[in-house]
C-alpha cells in the first residue's frame, strides 16, 4: 500500500482525483443534454468522498468519467496528478463496484475475484492464494466454488467488493453499491464499508442518492443537481449550513422560508428540529396545524403559515390537535440565509 501513508497533519494531502472544468454530454433523440456541466472537483488520497444527488443529476456520470467508462467532451481528469482523460478503464489504477455488481455469471466466486489478477498474467497459484485471502477478508471463505447465482444479494455485494479490491487499487469507485439491499443489511454494510475504508486507507468515491448514507459515511460530500455541484463540504457543514435551496431541501429536508414571511429579504433555511411550536397566537410566526405524524421518538407537525407549509419535529408526543392555532419559535443561529440561484 503506497497511499495515504503521507497523510500527516503537516503536509498537504496528495490529490487522488482531480476534475477540471469537465463537461460530458449525451445526445438522445436529437437533443444534447449536458450530464456533467463544467465540474471542478478535488478528492484527496485516503478520503471517503460521496457524490450525492437525485437520479439524473450527473453524479453517476461523474463517477463513470473517473472510471473511464465515459469520455469528457472537454476538461481534464487527473489521477494522482497525471492526465487520465483519454485513458481506457483497463489502464487506470482504480476499480469499481457496480450498482448491479456485474459479476460474471459463468465464473465461480473465486474466478470472479481472481479475474483482475488473471488478465494481468499473475501465475495461477498466486492468483488463487490472493483471491482466497480476499474472500476471507469479506467473510466469504466457504463460497469460493459457488456461482454468483447461488449467492444472496448481500453475498454478491461482498464478492463485487472483493473482486474490485483484489488488485489493491488506490481508488475504489462505488456506484450505489447498497441500493439493491434491504434496509437492515444496508445499515450493516454501511458500517462495514466505512471500517474497511479506514483499514485500507484508500480513496473511496461513493455515489448515492440516499442523503443519510452520504452523511453518515463520508469525509466530504458533493451535492449534484442538473450536472453541476451545488455544494461540496463535510457532512456537518452541509447539514448545518446549506448554501442553496436545493441543498437545504435535499439534505435533511429543511424548510425553505421566503424572507417576506419574517420581514426580511432573500430565502432562508430552517431545520424542522430547530423549530419550537407554541399553542395559540403569540408574537412571531403563527399558523394553523395541518397534520400530525407520530414517528415514535419524535412527532412531525405540519403547519400552514400563509401559503407556505412548514414542517417541524418535536420530541415525544404532541398534545396539540389538528386545526389548532400555533406559533413558531426558533433561535436566530439556526436560520440560514440561502444563495438565490440564477
Amino acid at each position, binding site marked *: 500500500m503506497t497511499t495515504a501513508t503521507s497523510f500527516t497533519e503537516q503536509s498537504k494531502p496528495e490529490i487522488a482525483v482531480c476534475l477540471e472544468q469537465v463537461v460530458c454530454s449525451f445526445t438522445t433523440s436529437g437533443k444534447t443534454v449536458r450530464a456533467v456541466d463544467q465540474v471542478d472537483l478535488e478528492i484527496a488520497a485516503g478520503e471517503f468522498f460521496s457524490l450525492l444527488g437525485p437520479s439524473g443529476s450527473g453524479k453517476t456520470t461523474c463517477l463513470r468519467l473517473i472510471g473511464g467508462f465515459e469520455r469528457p467532451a472537454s476538461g481534464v481528469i487527473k489521477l494522482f496528478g497525471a492526465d487520465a482523460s483519454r485513458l481506457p*478503464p483497463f489502464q487506470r489504477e482504480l476499480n469499481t463496484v457496480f450498482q448491479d455488481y456485474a459479476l460474471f*455469471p459463468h465464473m465461480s466466486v473465486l474466478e470472479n475475484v481472481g479475474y483482475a489478477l488473471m488478465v494481468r498474467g499473475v501465475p495461477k497459484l498466486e492468483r488463487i492464494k490472493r483471491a482466497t485471502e480476499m474472500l476471507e477478508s469479506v467473510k466469504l471463505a466457504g463460497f469460493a466454488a459457488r456461482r454468483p447465482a447461488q449467492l444472496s444479494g448481500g453475498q454478491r455485494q461482498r464478492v463485487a467488493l472483493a473482486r*474490485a479490491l483484489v488488485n489493491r487499487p488506490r481508488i475504489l469507485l462505488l456506484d450505489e453499491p447498497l441500493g439493491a439491499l434491504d434496509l437492515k443489511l444496508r445499515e450493516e454494510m454501511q458500517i462495514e464499508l466505512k471500517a474497511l475504508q479506514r483499514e485500507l486507507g484508500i480513496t473511496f468515491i461513493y455515489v448515492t442518492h440516499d442523503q443519510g448514507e452520504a452523511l453518515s459515511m463520508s469525509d466530504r460530500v458533493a451535492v449534484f443537481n442538473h450536472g453541476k455541484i451545488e455544494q461540496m463540504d463535510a457532512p456537518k457543514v452541509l447539514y448545518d449550513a446549506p448554501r442553496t435551496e436545493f441543498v437545504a431541501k435535499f439534505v435533511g429536508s429543511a424548510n425553505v422560508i421566503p424572507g417576506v414571511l419574517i420581514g426580511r429579504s432573500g430565502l432562508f433555511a430552517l431545520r424542522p428540529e430547530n423549530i419550537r411550536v407554541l399553542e395559540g397566537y403569540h408574537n412571531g410566526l403563527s399558523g394553523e396545524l395541518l397534520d400530525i405524524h407520530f414517528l415514535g421518538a419524535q412527532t412531525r407537525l405540519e403547519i400552514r403559515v400563509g401559503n407556505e407549509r412548514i414542517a417541524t419535529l418535536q420530541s415525544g408526543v404532541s398534545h396539540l390537535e389538528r386545526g389548532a392555532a400555533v406559533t413558531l419559535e426558533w433561535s436566530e443561529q439556526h436560520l440560514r440565509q440561502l444563495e438565490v440561484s440564477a
Partner: protein
Amino acid sequence: MTSASWGLRIAAFLCIFFLHFPLFIIVLYAFTTDDKTYAFPPPGLTLHWFTVAAGRADIWAALWLSVQTALLATAIALVLGTMVAAAMYKAKFWGKESITLLFILPIALPGIVTGIALLSTIRRVNLEPGVLTMVIGHATFCIVTVFNNVVARLRRLSQSQLEASADLGADSWQTFRFVVLPSISTALLAGGLLSFALSFDEVIVTTFTAGTDQTLPIWFLNELFRPRDRPITNVVALFVIAVTLIPILLVQRLTQAGEDLHGGGKTS
C-alpha cells in the same frame, strides 16, 4: 388464462396434425415392401431397403459432399455473422437499417433469385461451379441465422459486465475472450447448428451453384422429378429428416422456448 373454447382447441390440434401427418407418412413408407407405387396402405413392412440404401456409393458420396459444404458454409457464417452481431447489437449509426436489410435480403428474396444471381456472376467471372461456389452461396444466407442468434444473446449481456472486465484490467481482446465468448457460446452453437441444418437441406441455391456436383438434396431432387429408386428414396427421406431434426432438438435444448429460432431465417 381462461380455458380455450372447444372450437379453438380443435382448430389448433388439427393444424398440428396437418403439419405432422406427412412426416409420419415418410416414416411409414421407409418400411414399405412396395417398390413400384405409392400405394396406401403399404402391402407389407420390411427393413430391407435400409441395407440396400446403405450400400449405395452415390448416396454416401452425396452425403459427404453435403456435410463438407455445410461445415464450411457454417464456419464462414459463424465468423461473419458474429462480427455483424457484435457491431450492430448496441451501436446506433446511420445506415444501420440498410445493413440489416442487406443481411435479411437473401432470405427475404426467393432462393431462386439468389441462385440465378450467383450463377450469372459465376458465369461472368468464369468460375468453375463446384464446392467453392456452393459454400459461398450457402454462407451468404447462413450469416443471418448466426446473426439472429448471437445478436439476441448479446442484447441480454449486461453492459456493466463488459465495463467491469475493462475496469479490472482486461483489454478488449481479453474481455471478448473471457466474458463475451463464454456468454454467447450457446448462441454460437445454436446458430452454427441451425446454419448446418439450413445448408445441409438447401436445394435451390445449390442447383444453381453446384455445377455437376451432387449433394444429397440434389440427389433427392432428381429422384423427386424422375423417380428411379422409390424405396431407397423413402429411406433417404427418413434419414434426411432425422439428420436435420437432431440439430433442431439440440438447439431447442440450448435456448429457452426456442426463442432464438424465431424468424431464424430458414428459407428454401
